[in-house]
């Protein structure tokens, strides 16, 4: 098992989610001989090329045929393998939706679907390659676990956790290289259990993926204004940590969710469901894509325009906090 410290955190940050995933997968494969990898012509882009060189027999390339990739992954899993199937998030959710649902999730197979470049990480490559719907799709599929790690260290932990978990997992990777660091030292990662990164009593910001770091940044800005913000790292979007949502609803005055995803069907929706079902009167603001196809731009521009940077989250909180 790799350990988290200042040096590894820095290295993983530089590698970004995909790079860290690729490195971790080799450690996972050394530990677990049944782990195999399959890709649809995106070995380089999803950083599994190194794996393919070290474990050529355990690597399968199906070409540009994502639906087939998931079907073949299901067959490998039925046979007894633990399969990591890699593609861009837009394809590994939307293009293969039915195969994920019928071939993988329904029979509860040991297939880990990797959605890299989720959200707007593709920048000027455009909307065809954006993925702001994947969480909504995967949440609606029974049996799926959805992991959305905040930084390199968490990508490492989530990859190991997915490999050890017996069943279907969707691993969502957001952000690009030089990932913002959230975890600089060893921490416990448990599927379905959110991490409280910062205590606070006035309000709570629940972040997921690489926007957790932005949520933390916003909390520091708010502190200067005398607003005490609690920050949660919701690395598991399904099953959602319902207990922690109830807890912050009881203990703090307002909840803001932050996600690089449409506000329909993602983290914000999941939190809203919990609050509504509990009859909570706590007000919720969902920061995310406001149900639109944004005009294509570079990634940093889109983060700003969608209100995902620390400064923008801070401004939204200041405007909406009551």
């Amino acid at each position, binding site marked *: 098992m790799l350990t988290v410290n200042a040096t590894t955190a820095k290295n993983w940050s530089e590698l970004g989610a995909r790079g860290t995933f690729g490195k971790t997968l080799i450690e996972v494969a050394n530990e677990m001989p049944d782990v*195999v990898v399959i890709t649809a012509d995106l070995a380089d882009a999803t950083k599994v090329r190194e794996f393919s060189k070290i474990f050529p*027999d*355990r690597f*399968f*390339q*199906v*070409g540009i*045929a994502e*639906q*087939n990739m*998931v*079907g*073949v*992954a*299901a*067959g*490998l*899993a*039925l*046979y*007894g*393998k633990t399969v990591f199937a890699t593609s861009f998030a837009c394809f590994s959710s939307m293009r293969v939706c*039915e*195969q994920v649902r*019928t*071939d993988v999730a*329904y*029979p509860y197979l040991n297939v880990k679907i990797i959605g890299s470049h989720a959200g707007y990480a593709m920048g000027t490559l455009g909307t065809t390659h954006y993925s702001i719907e994947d969480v909504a799709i995967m949440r609606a599929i029974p049996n799926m676990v959805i992991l959305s790690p905040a930084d390199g260290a968490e990508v490492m932990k989530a990859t190991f956790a997915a490999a050890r978990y017996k069943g279907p997992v969707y691993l969502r990777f957001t952000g690009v290289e030089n990932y913002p660091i959230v975890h600089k030292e060893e921490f416990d990662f448990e599927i379905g259990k959110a991490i409280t990164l910062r205590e606070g009593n006035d309000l709570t910001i629940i972040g997921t993926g690489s926007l957790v770091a932005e949520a933390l940044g916003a909390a520091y800005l708010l502190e200067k204004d005398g607003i005490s913000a609690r920050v949660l790292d919701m690395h598991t979007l399904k099953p959602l940590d319902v207990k922690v949502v109830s807890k912050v609803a009881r203990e703090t005055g307002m909840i803001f969710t932050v996600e690089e995803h449409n506000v329909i069907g993602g983290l914000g929706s999941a939190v809203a469901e919990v609050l509504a079902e509990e009859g909570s009167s706590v007000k919720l603001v969902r920061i995310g894509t406001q149900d639109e196809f944004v005009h294509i731009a570079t990634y940093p521009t889109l983060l700003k325009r969608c209100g995902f940077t620390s400064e923008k989250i801070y401004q939204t909180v200041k405007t909406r906090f009551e």
Partner: protein
Amino acid sequence: MTEKTRYEVIAGIEEKARMMRKLSLDMGLVAVKAGAGAHLGPGYSMTDITATLYFHIMKHDPKNPEWKDRDRFILSKGHGVLGYYPALALSGYFPVEQLLTFDTDESDLVGHPCMNLRYGIEASTGSLGHGLPIAVGYALGGKLDKKNFTVYCLLGDGECDEGTVWEAVMTANQYRLDNLVAIVDRNRLQSDGLSREIIQMDDMAEKWRSFGWLVREIDGHDVGEIMDALHMKSRPVGRPYVIIAHTIKGKGVSFFEDDNAWHYGRLTSEQAQQAYSELGFSSDGKEMPKC
């Protein structure tokens, strides 16, 4: 015990196929009572193939359905359950009487196969174009672990309209999967009618051949031909193999044959009586085959 002659082996498989068709009628009647129809035509066209696989070709052990070295059968044309469940029951995976729960409330035997190894059902299929990719995955797993089992995958010819079939066809060729045998039930009809008028695939054999597969075309109702085509000695080394089995949809009952109304139909008791008689059973259908 002396070894059976070829004639005896064929006669034995034909008898199993006759029993399977009878049991399909029983299931069809149960389905009507439960308010459903049944895919009799697609089941009957493939019955001689599944009978040959289950009662002569495949290495499998109904008492040990999780046996790691077993041959696998994936019914990619998942609506063909009437040509599948009876083979599993007659093999001993579950009691023949259980077939009479078909399509009834809460039954394990539903209109499209639901993965259940205890019953010998390897995969959940029914969404067309999914079975062959799964079979390819199974075959890759077997190759990786140097196992000797074969994966058999039965597809419909109409199913070959699905793009994922051809994606999997290319993967099988790329990985030289000679532990994979695909069988196309070429009955030339699909849900909306004559396949030729929907998506013309007169060059079915040529298509598979051009994708690198060894192709053999047979009469899918001639058990001797099916046996020979599936024999190890007919199988290629280093490449995948497809058998295009020319069949008649509804084969075995005169008024089912080539009538697409039986793609999914509701059997009346009068029709059932005639069908039982044509199959050589008493017209009341009460006689119950044993495994």
